[in-house]
């Protein structure tokens, strides 16, 4: 009954291959691939100097510096504190541990606009936290870093947690038996096992931060050359009907994002291999 399809590499008695393949490809094409290709095709109509002007003007370069710099700093902070949070959640018992564990995912569930106005109010000069700080956070580049730290918070915790939970106690016992103290065991035995997961979490948080818009625009102050992120610049160009300029910057960001996606896939494969799965 079922006739072989040239794409199939193994015969299956199950029905629905053609229907599932057709619907998946049609939907993927209509919703994702065709619209995304529009960005690349639009840019292809630009002359090289016009493209270069659009993606490398001083204002755009300043926005790259801020976006990449703040994303990098936020992802690094999240590696450090994410490791501590994951460690504490896996290894220790303390009051309200399960509630804290569940709340770590809040940045995934809380809409970015809500996070944006909440962080702005909190870190403003008269805010709960801002009032105690001698320097400006809200409406300054530092605010971008705060928002991106919030957005990236769950990634490192959630990639490190399962690896830490799977870590076999024998390794640490062996290290202790061989005379290692607790710090040596951590740096020489535990940390190397966690490295792929830490790198994956870092890359995920960094990639997410690069494209983030909603939470940042409230807290950043959005001053050109100072606190203007690249996604905002795309919107600004759109509002000035500079579609080609907006799309050119978008293509630069898309290429970076796709490169990071491939890197993350490779890192995740490495993590799984290390875990022996």
């Amino acid at each position: 009954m079922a006739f072989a399809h040239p794409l199939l590499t193994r015969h299956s008695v199950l029905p629905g291959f053609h229907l599932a393949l057709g619907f998946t490809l049609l939907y993927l094409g209509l919703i994702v691939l065709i619209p995304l290709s529009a960005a690349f095709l639009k840019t292809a109509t630009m002359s090289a100097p016009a493209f270069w002007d659009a993606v490398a003007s001083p204002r755009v370069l300043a926005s790259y510096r801020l976006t990449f710099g703040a994303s990098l700093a936020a992802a690094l902070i999240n590696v450090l504190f994410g490791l501590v949070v994951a460690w504490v959640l896996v290894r220790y018992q303390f009051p309200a541990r399960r509630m804290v564990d569940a709340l770590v995912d809040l940045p995934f569930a809380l809409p970015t606009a809500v996070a944006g106005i909440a962080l702005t109010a909190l870190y403003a000069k008269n805010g709960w936290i801002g009032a105690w700080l001698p320097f400006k956070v809200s409406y300054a580049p530092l605010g971008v870093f705060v928002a991106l730290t919030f957005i990236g918070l769950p990634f490192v915790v959630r990639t490190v947690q399962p690896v830490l939970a799977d870590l076999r106690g024998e390794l640490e016992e062996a290290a202790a038996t061989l005379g290692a103290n607790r710090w040596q065991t951590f740096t020489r035995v535990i940390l190397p096992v966690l490295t792929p997961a830490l790198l994956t979490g870092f890359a995920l948080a960094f990639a997410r931060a690069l494209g983030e818009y909603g939470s940042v625009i409230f807290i950043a102050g959005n001053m050109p050359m100072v606190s203007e992120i690249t996604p905002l610049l795309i919107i600004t160009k759109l509002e000035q009907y500079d579609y080609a300029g907006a799309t050119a910057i978008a293509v630069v960001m898309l290429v970076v994002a796709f490169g990071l996606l491939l890197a993350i896939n490779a890192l995740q494969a490495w993590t799984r291999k290390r875990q022996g799965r």
Partner: protein
Amino acid sequence: MSTPAPAVPLAVLAPAHAGSAPRAMRGATTEPAAVKWLLIGVAIAFLTLFLFMPLAIVFVEALKKGFDAYVAAIAEPDARSAIGLTLLAAAIAVPLNLLFGIAAAWLIAKFEFRGKSVLLTLIDLPFSVSPVISGLIYVLVFGLQGWFGEWLRDHDLKVIFAVPGIVLATTFVTFPFVARELIPLMQAQGTEQEEAARVLGAGGWQIFRRVTLPNVKWALLYGVILCNARAMGEFGAVSVVSGHIRGQTNTMPLHIEILYNEYQFAAAFAVASLLALLALVTLVLKYGLEQRVKSEHEASVEPRESAG
């Protein structure tokens, strides 16, 4: 008769043995209490500054002008229409992506075909695209200067700066959610059960409804809940295609932005508190479902191990 006699040395020895050796081990593979509580303190302080306080301030600011002002901010016509549009966008985007997730998972988990890993990467693409760019690409296709711009104008149809554009952008940003949850689970479960049902004469729909669906129902629900949370909260992509027409093309997040920029802080936080509540409900459901999804995964591993 003599049963108590051997029981005595065992009862004395056993706890001594069980107690002393592991205790020595535990000392070597745990941190001193001071380090432990310092680490817990650092973790809680970090989470308080970046997580708990932002959540708390939403509700405090929302109720700052009293409960009546809070209710008024939510019941106001523009807010009500924003809530309606947010629900509408999610009500279209989530079922579409659910249908896609099931089709894609069936395809990838139940068949071996060329190009599968490329397809898997393509399904994940929307997660790595900036929300702003997700909106921009639809402007390039359906906007006035876009591919179909003139055709749409001639036929008096509007996608960009109208509801269809908002639905499309929402669908794009929530595209992978259900597929991401279903694919690894259905891959782990393999095809034996479905093949058995097929051999026994079940049709395609029967196999899916009676065999596959019961095995993945919690993962499916989990994906739908995450998809819905993102659909209702999306800001950047929707902002690009919305046109910000009050009472017509404003979703809840966009309405919050307008109120905030007009310095109506209490009203902005009041609408924001509804989305924060949605986030909390999502987290509670997510936490509860995680255990069930885990058991679905374990159930898929056991029969394979016993068979192999």
